[in-house]
């Protein structure tokens, strides 16, 4: 974590003169820390506040506003299943039920082996692949119960 922070602080020093407020790096800093840690714990929020000059509360407020910034632990692999209109019309609701049954843990939490977090997401811009999911940032679709279960199984076995 320290390396990332050092880099960020170095970046801040070298920002162009015209670059305005330090708080503009809050989201990129959160994204960088999350890439390293998997989620932002309280210590990470404190660090963000230090770098950006925001209060801890302001940093917390920003982090919790965004759906792609995690304040709770996430699995090694995240699967966001779209539950918006086009995917829903093509079976997303059943997919979410099937996923929850398969992982035996509520949506949005981590499986006991630490491998998976499955959660519903808003329209992923994959309506032409409905029902679709974003798996570690990669678009997948159209999915059905069988292909989703096979995918979850594969991810559980992967590092």
């Amino acid at each position: 974590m320290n390396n990332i922070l050092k880099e960020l602080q170095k970046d801040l020093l070298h920002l162009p003169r015209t670059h305005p407020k330090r708080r503009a790096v809050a989201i990129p800093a959160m994204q960088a820390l999350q890439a390293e840690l998997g989620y932002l714990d309280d210590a990470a929020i404190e660090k963000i506040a230090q770098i950006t000059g925001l209060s801890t509360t302001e940093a917390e407020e920003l982090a919790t506003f965004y759906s792609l910034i995690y304040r709770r632990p996430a699995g090694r692999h995240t699967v966001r299943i779209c539950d918006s209109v086009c995917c829903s019309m093509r079976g997303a609701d059943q997919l979410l039920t099937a996923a929850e049954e398969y992982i035996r843990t509520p949506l949005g939490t981590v499986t006991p082996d630490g491998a998976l977090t499955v959660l519903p997401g808003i329209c992923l811009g994959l309506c032409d692949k409905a029902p679709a999911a974003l798996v570690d940032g990669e678009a997948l679709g159209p999915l059905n119960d069988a292909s989703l279960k096979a995918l979850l199984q594969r991810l559980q076995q992967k590092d």
Partner: protein
Amino acid sequence: MEALLTRHLDPVAPLNLVAYQATGGYRSLTSAFDLKPEKIIGIVEAANLRGRGGAGFPCGLKWRLRGADAPSPRYLICNLDESEPGTFKDRYLLYGGPHQIIESIIVSAFALQAERAFIFVRGEYAKGGNALNQAIQEAETAGLLGTNIRGSGFNLQIEAHLSGGRYICGEETAQINAIEGKRPNPRHKIPRPSTHGLWGQPTTTNNVETLINVPHILLNGADWFRELGVNGGCGSKLFCVSGKVKHSGLFELPCGTPARELIFEHAGGLDENRALLGFLPGGASTAFLLPKHLDVPMDFDPIAKAGSRLGTGSIIVLDDATCPVEVTLNLMRFFARESCGFCTPCRDGLPYLTQILTTISSGSGRADDLALLDELCATIASQSFCAFAPGAVMPLVSSLKCFHDHYEHHVTTGRCPFNEANKNGA
């Protein structure tokens, strides 16, 4: 019509700088730098290029209203935060051809004499954002960005901002707050962002699809661009078709192409050749249209005249096996969840609408719920702070009108006629 905006897109292996230039890419810089910025704005105005992000505001007019004497630094924001359900056109542009985006930003920023541009990329498109960053670096190395670009004396720096992910960030002033690292609530529109935008400086925001038209307009002229459209529309348009159709997809067609052609020719017609119940013409925050509207040109004014909005030009198709109450409930759940929470009518009103719709959908609705929904929609839309809530209630208000019999049926029989499971139960 020959593909214009999608001609060189390749989502698997997008063209690098050299390959893009070999297709004629970055040629519009020469045309632009030979002209005075005011002249470019005049050409874009004459082309009648209207904003493709949803509002349809004339691009050239927006640029002219910013004013040539706007104080420095001036900013251009390319809005690539596409999150409107049913819309995926910008994803194709981002993943398929990052250099096309950069070229269009350079010529547009030159017209605006903006020295810094941001591309606001939705968080779910992070992989595309990475490729875009590489393309920006390639362009910088080649001297297409930076200081005194190609000896023009024009300086430009482009930065991609990857969103943390919320629908409201697509709104112009919320996006400005997001880039500044503030909580992305929409701002009050007075003073306007064109004079007091990003860090209090003159800021122009355009959707990415709007911007990628600009190089073509510069190369071929305003008249040529206007003539690309049909039925009174101007230019080329990216249409998305999804929902209950055989071949969901992105189709580049003349602006003004009717929905009938899009749905039945290009998207292959409805699933199992079922009958069309209705469609949303421009994404989730537009009003439903009915089969009788199939021949209305998909262009801003005709669709507005029909009672809806062209929005993002993204058609969501409902067949006669789809329950319109359930579809509307899904839309309202989306908007209730994505409200930024800043103002009370939106934050509390949308969940209330969702709650009432849930009871109707599950068969426990009361006869007076329908009038209550109508009344609440009117209150929420008129009392909320930004354009989010008026957009959010639009599909509900129109759904109550277009599919009134379906709502009545749910309320009077206490069950959903589309849901087999409920037929024996309840």
